[in-house]
C-alpha cells in the first residue's frame, strides 16, 4: 500500500509513530468496544478526569456508557499471569466534558498500561516511553516527574490529615506556597516544618540538582532512592534533556501511589501526556499486583505545527456542461498523476480555496493563478 503521509493530520502521524514505538517494546494493541457498563464508572467516579458520562440503555436493559476513560476497562479485563507483566497499548476515542467547557467532546487518546509484577525496570520503561512519546510529538518537550510518597509522608509527619491534607495537596498541586504556609500556621505547624513543606511545593528542575535537595529536606528516603534509580535508567536510555522533577505533579491518592508524571510540549497550552502508578486502583478493583501507565491527549496536538492545509485542493479543474465525462476524467488523472490534489467542478465554489484554477477547455493544464 502506498501511504501518502502528507494528507495525514498531525495527530494521525503522531498516533502512528507512538503505536510503532510501543509495539517495539513488546506492548500489544488492546482493542475495545466504545461502550462499557455504566456501573464500572459509578464505582470509580473520582478516578475519571470528568465525572460526566454519556449513558444509554442497551436493548437488553443494561445501562451502558460511552467510554469516558480507557484505563478502567483495561484494568477490569487484565489477566496478568503471576510473576509477569501484561503490557498493552491503545489508540481509542473517549467521551467526556472538560472543566469549564459546555457539552461532551470526543477525545482521541493513545497510551499504554503495564499491569502485574511491575518492578523498577517496568516503571523506568514506562517513563522512558513517555519521554520518547513526547520526543515524537515535538522536538521541545518536558517530562515532569514526581513521587506521591514524598508529599504523602511529609504531610503525615506534619500531622496534616483529613481536610487539611486535601487542602495542603491542592496547594502543592498549584505551587501555591502562600496558602500552604497560611494553612500550616493555622494548624500550629512549626516554622521550620512549614518552610520544608513550602520549599517542597516549589521544587522544580533537573533531578540531579533536586535529588540532593529532597534528601536535605528529609523526604521519604525510599521514594527519593527510587527517583534516583529511575533518573539513572532514563539518562542511560538517552533521555538527556527535558527531564524535570516537579513535586506539584499529583494524583488522587485513593487510586494513585508512587511515581506520577506529566508531559508538556512547546506550543500546546496544557499537558499532552499524563500518567502514573495506580496500584491502589488495582486493589480497589480486586486485582493483585501493581500498575502504571500513561495517556497522550491527541486533541491537544491539533494546533501544533503540522501540515498546513491553506488550500482545499491544488487545482480546481473547471469544466462545462457539454464536456465529455471521459475528457474530465482524463484531465483529472493527468493532474493527479503529476502529484496535484484536484477538485473538478462546473463552477468556482464561493468558499473554496485553490492554489490554481484550470479550465478544461484550455487543454486541462494551463490556467490562471
Amino acid at each position, binding site marked *: 500500500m502506498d501511504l501518502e503521509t502528507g494528507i495525514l493530520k498531525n495527530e494521525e502521524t503522531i498516533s502512528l509513530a507512538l503505536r510503532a514505538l510501543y509495539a517495539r517494546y513488546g506492548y500489544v494493541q488492546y482493542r475495545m468496544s466504545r461502550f462499557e457498563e455504566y456501573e464500572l464508572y459509578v464505582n470509580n467516579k473520582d478516578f475519571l478526569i470528568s465525572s460526566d458520562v454519556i449513558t444509554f440503555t442497551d436493548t437488553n436493559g443494561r445501562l451502558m456508557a460511552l467510554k469516558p476513560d480507557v484505563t478502567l476497562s483495561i484494568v477490569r479485563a487484565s489477566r496478568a499471569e503471576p510473576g509477569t507483566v501484561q503490557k498493552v497499548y491503545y489508540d481509542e476515542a473517549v467521551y467526556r466534558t472538560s*472543566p*469549564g467547557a459546555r457539552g461532551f467532546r470526543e477525545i482521541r487518546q493513545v497510551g499504554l498500561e503495564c499491569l502485574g509484577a511491575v518492578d523498577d525496570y517496568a516503571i523506568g520503561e514506562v517513563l522512558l516511553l513517555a519521554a520518547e512519546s513526547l520526543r515524537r510529538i515535538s522536538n*521541545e518537550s*518536558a517530562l*515532569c516527574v514526581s513521587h506521591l510518597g514524598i508529599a504523602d509522608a511529609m504531610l503525615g509527619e506534619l500531622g496534616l490529615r483529613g481536610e487539611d491534607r486535601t487542602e495542603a495537596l491542592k496547594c502543592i498541586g*498549584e*505551587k*501555591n506556597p*502562600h*496558602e500552604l504556609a497560611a494553612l500550616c500556621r493555622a494548624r500550629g505547624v512549626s516554622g521550620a516544618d512549614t518552610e520544608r513543606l513550602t520549599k517542597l511545593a516549589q521544587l*522544580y528542575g533537573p533531578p540531579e540538582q533536586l535529588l540532593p535537595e529532597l534528601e536535605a529536606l528529609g523526604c521519604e528516603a525510599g521514594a527519593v532512592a527510587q527517583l534516583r534509580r529511575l533518573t539513572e535508567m532514563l539518562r542511560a536510555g538517552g533521555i538527556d534533556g527535558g527531564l*524535570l522533577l516537579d513535586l*506539584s505533579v499529583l494524583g488522587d491518592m485513593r487510586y494513585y501511589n508512587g511515581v506520577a508524571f*506529566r508531559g*508538556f*510540549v*512547546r506550543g*500546546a*497550552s*496544557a*499537558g499532552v501526556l499524563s500518567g502514573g502508578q495506580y496500584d491502589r486502583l488495582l486493589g480497589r478493583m480486586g486485582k493483585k499486583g501493581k500498575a502504571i501507565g500513561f495517556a497522550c491527549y491527541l486533541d491537544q496536538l491539533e494546533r501544533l505545527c503540522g501540515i498546513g492545509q491553506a488550500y482545499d485542493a491544488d487545482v480546481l479543474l473547471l469544466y462545462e456542461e457539454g464536456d465529455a465525462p471521459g475528457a474530465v476524467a482524463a484531465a483529472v488523472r493527468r493532474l493527479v498523476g503529476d502529484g496535484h490534489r484536484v477538485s473538478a467542478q462546473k463552477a468556482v465554489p464561493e468558499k473554496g480555496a485553490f492554489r490554481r484554477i484550470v479550465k478544461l477547455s484550455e487543454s486541462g493544464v494551463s490556467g490562471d493563478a
Partner: protein
Amino acid sequence: MLNIALPKGRLGEKVYAMFARAGFECPAILEDNRRLYFENEALGLRYFWVKPSDVAIYVERGAADIGVAGKDILLEYAPEVYELLDLGVGKCRMCVAAPKGYHDDMRKTLRVATKFSHIASDYYASLGRDIDIIPLNGSIELAPILGLSDVIVDLVETGTTLRENDLAVVETIVPISARLIANKASYAFRNEAIGTVVRGLAEEAQI
C-alpha cells in the same frame, strides 16, 4: 517574549506599578491611548490588558504565560494554572451579606443571589445548608431589598455599598487578593523568565 495578562482597571494599574518597580517596566503602557497590548522588546515582555475575569482564561489557554487574577476568579472558575504568588493588593473579602437584623430560618431553602455561584455553592455545601442560587451579574445588593433573595454572596472591600443599602456582613467566606498565576506549559518552557518575575514581585508583594 513573555506574555503577561493584566486586569484592566485600577487593580491592573496598581499591579503594573509593582511590575515596573521590580524592573519589568514597559513605558508604552502609560501612554494615553486605546491600545490593548504593549511591548518592551529589550526586556522581552509583552503586557496586555484584559477584562479581570478573563485573565485566568488567557493564562490557562496559554495566550498569556503569566497574569494577575483575583482569588475570587480563581475560586469561581478553578482554572488549571499555577498560583505562584499572593501580591497582597486588591484586598477584600468574599462575604455573605443580608439586610440588617437578618435571621436565617433553617426550615426554608436559603435563596442566595450572587455572581459567584461556585463559591456560594461550595460554601453552603460545606455547611450542609440547602440553597437556591440566583445568578446575577450586577447590583447584587438589590436582590434582598426587593425580596429576590434572602442573602447575597459578594466581594466586600470597605462595606460602604452594603451600608448605604442597609445591608451588613453576616459571614466572611474567604479573604481575597490579587495572585500571580502561570500557565503550566509556560512554566516548563519559560521557567527562568517566570522565576525572575516571581522573585522580583515577591520583593514588592504587600503581605
